[in-house]
């Protein structure tokens, strides 16, 4: 189990270096579908995770994740390399998520069930996965959840998160630690059962 987790951590970290992402976006701008596929493979969990953190709805987050990469394809030629490729990608995802929230709210009041964390559908999702996602969605405030996802899954540094969310660095740090503590309590309680 620990070995598997270690391997995943490696994959997540490999996605971090902005330099590699920058090169991929450059390739996408030039019309390389292979580079888009590679970017998708490396960042899909981060993009989906951020979208889910805003939308709290699996199906909606899935749509936003797919739309984000379509948008990346269209927008890549106008991207200017500044070493912030991950933040650029996440900004696209966030804007799509916010737009969807806004139009959803204007069209109808979605029922609680539809907003439920458990509209997430995936054949590979385990009971443990559901527990941790449920905890993150139900127990963390929106802001706390954004911060945790941006650091743990998207690989942004706390300083970058502060910039991305327009918050003070100490706020990000304290919220991050408080959130992890909350999640830990829930997950340990779960283990004990």
């Amino acid at each position, binding site marked *: 189990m620990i070995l598997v987790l270690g391997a995943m951590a490696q994959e997540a970290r490999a996605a971090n270096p902005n330099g590699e992402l920058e090169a991929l976006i450059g390739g996408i701008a030039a019309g390389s579908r292979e580079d888009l596929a590679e970017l998708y493979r490396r960042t899909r969990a*981060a993009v989906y995770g951020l979208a889910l953190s805003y939308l709290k709805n699996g199906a909606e987050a899935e749509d936003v994740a797919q739309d984000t990469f379509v948008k990346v394809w269209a927008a890549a030629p106008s991207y200017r390399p500044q070493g912030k490729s991950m933040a650029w990608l996440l900004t696209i995802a966030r804007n799509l998520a916010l*737009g969807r929230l806004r139009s959803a709210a204007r069209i109808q009041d979605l029922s609680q069930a539809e907003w439920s964390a458990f509209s997430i559908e995936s054949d590979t999702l385990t009971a443990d996965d559901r527990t941790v996602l449920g905890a993150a969605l139900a127990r963390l405030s929106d802001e706390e959840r954004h911060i945790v996802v941006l650091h743990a899954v998207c690989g942004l540094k706390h300083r970058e998160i502060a910039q991305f969310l327009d918050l003070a660095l100490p706020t990000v740090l304290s919220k991050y630690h408080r959130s992890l503590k909350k999640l830990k309590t829930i997950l*340990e309680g779960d283990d004990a059962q």
Partner: protein
Amino acid sequence: MTDRNVEQALRTALEHAAPNDVESVLLRCDDRKGNVIPMTNQNPEKKNRKPLRLAALAAAACLVLAIGGGSVYYNQSQTAASVVSLDVNPSIELVLNSRERVLRATALNEDAAAVLDGMDLKGSTLDVAVNALMGSLLKNGYVDELANSILITVEDDDATRAAQLESQLTETVNAVMTSSSINGAILSQVVNQNQDLQAKADEYGISLGKAQLIQQLVDQNPTLTFESLAGRTVNDLNLLLSSQATTLSTVSSTGRASDGGYIGTEVAKNAALAHAGLSADQVTVSKVDFDVEDGRMVYEVEFWANNVEYEYDVDATTGEIVKNHTETYTAAAGQNGSIDQAAAKAAALSAFGLSEDQAEGIVVIPSYDDGRFVYKVKFWAGSTEYFCAVDGSGQILKSEKEEHASSGSVATSGTDVGLEAAKAAALKHAGLSADQVTGLTAKLDWDDGQRVYEVDFWQGSTEYEYEINADGTVRQYESEAHAAPTAISAGSGSSGSSATSTDIGETGAKAAALSAAGLTEDQVQNLFIERDWDDGRIQYEVKFQANGTRYEYEIDGSTGSVLKGENKATAASGSFISADEALAKALSHAGLDQSAIRELEMDSELDDDVPHYSIDFKSGNLEYEYEISATDGSVLKFEQDN
């Protein structure tokens, strides 16, 4: 468990939950020049989302409970995007992300659907989208020299960004109009989310911005209704706004709304003058304004000649006279005489040269006006409404006539139930009998070209207002429960009773007022009593005259205590000069001819300690304000302003 483990668990869960379907993404990406990678294993269907399984939902419900039941609600206040709307008559709404890219463009009415037809604005910049929309508005003829107004509305939680968007949009729209050689008139505003207004906007198929503009117009001018304005174009609204010199603090306005689609003020004025049989040099025109009457744009024309004030509504498109109204001012004279109601009615009818059988719905209401006792007499003949104020000596103080344009078939007298039946119909509808109610009154009125009876009454602290059609059916009704009377202070003997209120009645109120004045009923004249409801308690207003003194009392309806008392010597019984004479005095003082002034406003304040007329008017770019003594015509006050 370490922090690392928690982070890892979350990462794993998201890796598992995230879609893994790059093919469907690649399929949606158009080829760019060169570098085409041939795809194998293509699946043209976008990954189908399976319907939510009930089992999963049930499990979800259990889990949420187990976790602690924190319900997951979407919090709208955290969204940061903005909504921009353009209203002409088509209403179009653009939802933007924080980088000013269009997320969604919505046609809010049918006209807008035609404008948006075939356009895909999603993903374009705001600038590109607005240019495209303006192009389509021009091409489809919604914006031209004759209707040149456009309303821009920005809705954004971030005030700085909202203001920036507002000015940026105004610039873009203006530039497009200028390049099409149109002198545009642009209204722009920033609005906040408002659920009540949004509901109204949705109901009428207009944007929140247009709804806000209409609401503000209605608030400033109570004669307008939301309903009658919702279907008007922004150009009409802009014309109303500028012609009534209404300024809305939250709306910026550039350019002038074009009235090229209407007959113009000169034509409207001439139509009204022709109807009155007067020529331009015989009258002083005080006003020619746009207004909305019965859902159509009209010019409201007001002028003044020989003691008579004329008010006309002229259809702005056809020049047809929609409504006209005249008001005659007569020199006020007699005092203290006390003719009865029948004599007042006869005086009013003869003033218009009508006999009693020609008039219907005659109502005589004793009341006080300008501090003197008057009978207000109202009646109808055909579709014309007459009003007269007759003083105690039988002199006509004021007479008014209003002709209503009848729409379609006017109810003939055969189908007209009359005042008494109208009262009965209203009572029946309310489930009350005449002896259960107080203050029952009924009068004939005219609404949308139809005769209606207005019936008002009270039952306890509930006020009823009915409109009864000429055929006796209920047109509309309203009942208003006023706050229950506040606890009655001890002192009167009724303590301990659980009754919420006692009502001393008109007789009790009259007795209380007379005793406060130290007079008996046979010593006073022109006694007038009115029941009212104020601050949750019944109140009576009692007025009468005796020995050249006017008394006014407010009596608490529960206790009979005097809340307010006032007595004043009535104005000197010598006759006053007429309004026309007063105007002539002011004009001669100003050295102006009647034809040189506009926006004339006159008011008579004959019950003042110094009885006078207030006269305001404009000439050139100067504003004049006069107070002319009603006794000797001297100038009491004079002001001249730029």
